[in-house]
């Protein structure tokens, strides 16, 4: 079973993030990490490979420093990677990004594509369905469990108050939440092996994509402002009356 995992390097959500002068996500800072949910997608792919054989290929679209994210996936156990790296990509919207990724998927042999349910920078959560529309493969999104018998795939699609069991024939596209597994840490052996694994670099011209970037985008960001910071209110230290003070505050605010 050949699996392609979509990963995206994003600014660390645990640190301050900002837009650059062009009102795009500032990716030039040093604090870039693999998308938080992508690790779960890599782990899901590795577990399926361990059960069914085949190859795991990582596909990413991003600037040069995204190599760090690729290395991490290879160290976890992915077999090879494809890195689409082209300055013309900057400023592309989700629709253009999906066209680029779909073109790259068209060059690869896969039974399954696995992605995180959403990226942790833009959080749109639409890429699996955009790719389904472009590749013609079915999309089974938001999985908290995934199983395959080699010809079909079954997932538990997570909902707020339960789950739906979805099935489709392969090839298919699946996205996963962080409930699906516990991602492994790269071993020292894995880190060493990653250095010898192949990474193919592609540009938009290799994929037959002519229009990308802001010029091809269907939306334009016209402004950005920092949200006014919430200011701290009254903070008391509990010296035996903290709970009562809390209840009094709730009563004053008419919650009791």
């Amino acid at each position: 079973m050949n699996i392609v995992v979509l990963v995206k390097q994003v600014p660390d959500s645990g640190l301050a993030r900002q837009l650059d002068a062009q009102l795009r996500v500032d990716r030039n800072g040093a604090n870039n990490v693999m998308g938080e949910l992508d690790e779960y997608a890599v782990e899901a792919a590795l577990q399926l490979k361990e059960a069914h054989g085949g190859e795991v290929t990582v596909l990413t679209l991003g600037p040069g420093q995204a190599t760090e994210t690729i290395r991490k996936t290879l160290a976890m156990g992915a077999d090879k990677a494809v890195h689409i790296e082209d300055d013309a990509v900057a400023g592309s919207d989700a629709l253009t990004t999906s066209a680029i990724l779909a073109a790259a998927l068209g060059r690869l042999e896969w039974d399954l594509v696995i992605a995180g349910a959403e990226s942790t920078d833009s959080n749109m959560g639409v890429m699996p369905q955009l790719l389904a529309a472009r590749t013609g493969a079915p999309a089974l999104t938001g999985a908290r469990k995934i199983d395959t018998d080699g010809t079909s795939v079954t997932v538990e699609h997570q909902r707020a108050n339960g789950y739906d069991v979805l099935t489709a024939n392969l090839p298919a596209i699946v996205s996963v939440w962080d409930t699906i597994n516990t991602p492994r840490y790269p071993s020292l052996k894995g880190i060493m092996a990653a250095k010898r694994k192949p990474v193919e670099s592609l540009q938009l011209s290799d994929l037959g994509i002519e229009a990308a970037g802001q010029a091809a985008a269907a939306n334009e960001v016209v402004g950005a402002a920092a949200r006014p910071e919430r200011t701290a209110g009254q903070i008391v230290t509990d010296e035996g009356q903290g709970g009562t003070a809390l209840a009094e505050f709730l009563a004053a605010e008419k919650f009791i």
Partner: protein
Amino acid sequence: MTDILVYVPNSGKHAAEVLTLARTLGDVSAVAFDDASASLAGEYGAAKVYRVEAPGIDDYFVDPKATVLTDLARKVAPDYFLLPSTDEGKALAARTAVALDNGLMTDLSGLAPDGTATQDAFAGTTIVTAKATKGFTLATIKLGATEPAPAPSSPEVETVNATVAESDQRVKVAQRVDEPAGDRPALSEARIVVSGGRGVGSAEDFALIERVADALGGAVGASRAATDAGYYPHKFQVGQTGTTVSPQLYVAAGISGAIQHRAGMQTSRVIVAVNKDADAPIFGMADFGVVGDLFQVLPQALEEIEKRK
């Protein structure tokens, strides 16, 4: 005349909010796949309802509904096509965008009559304004973008008969499993949310968080640290990778207030925090905070709440 197409799923408050927002932009046509959705559209001022009859459509995931909505959007040629920002709403919007070669914006927190959309970026620390530059405005609206306001109308109802094409039968819904929600309100829609974090320390001690939530008539939430530690089920996680809440009152107990958590609750109207660590970031955004042991503070607060009831 500005034409607004709205997808109305049978999900109460969120759909009512989208209809309320849509009304401020122009004439609303709603797409409903069942009677409850159709009547909700009438309660919230739709001028027209496309009542879709498609036997068997619920047996398949996304594809057949996407086809119906794409066909309708093509026929109606609206200025705006709005859907709730749910997993389903986003999926349907994505499919429509590709099929009609149109742009797409998600998770709008506002949409002005001139088409300017407002979105929260980076866990709500940045507010972005954006506009569609090609095609129509295709967007999903996040929960809490507006207060739902009823405006009963008698919409013209057009029945749309659709069949589920074989090409749309690829993803079967083999089973729907509803897990018991209990008596508490749904997390995303609750007026009051009481959440516990790492400081709660164990699954057993989450009972205290539940007791406070029940005393206030609220929902129970948990930080990622608490769900990762197995103290409380993941589906109650509030934060960037969990549920985003915007209640009138948010009580954070034993939660330090990492960015990942703040992303899910910082638009709450009133925030109350209890934490042992006086330097916890949560105190920087709390309207009222108690620096202290939650196992001392919360039982005493409960006692006082019961007294005042």
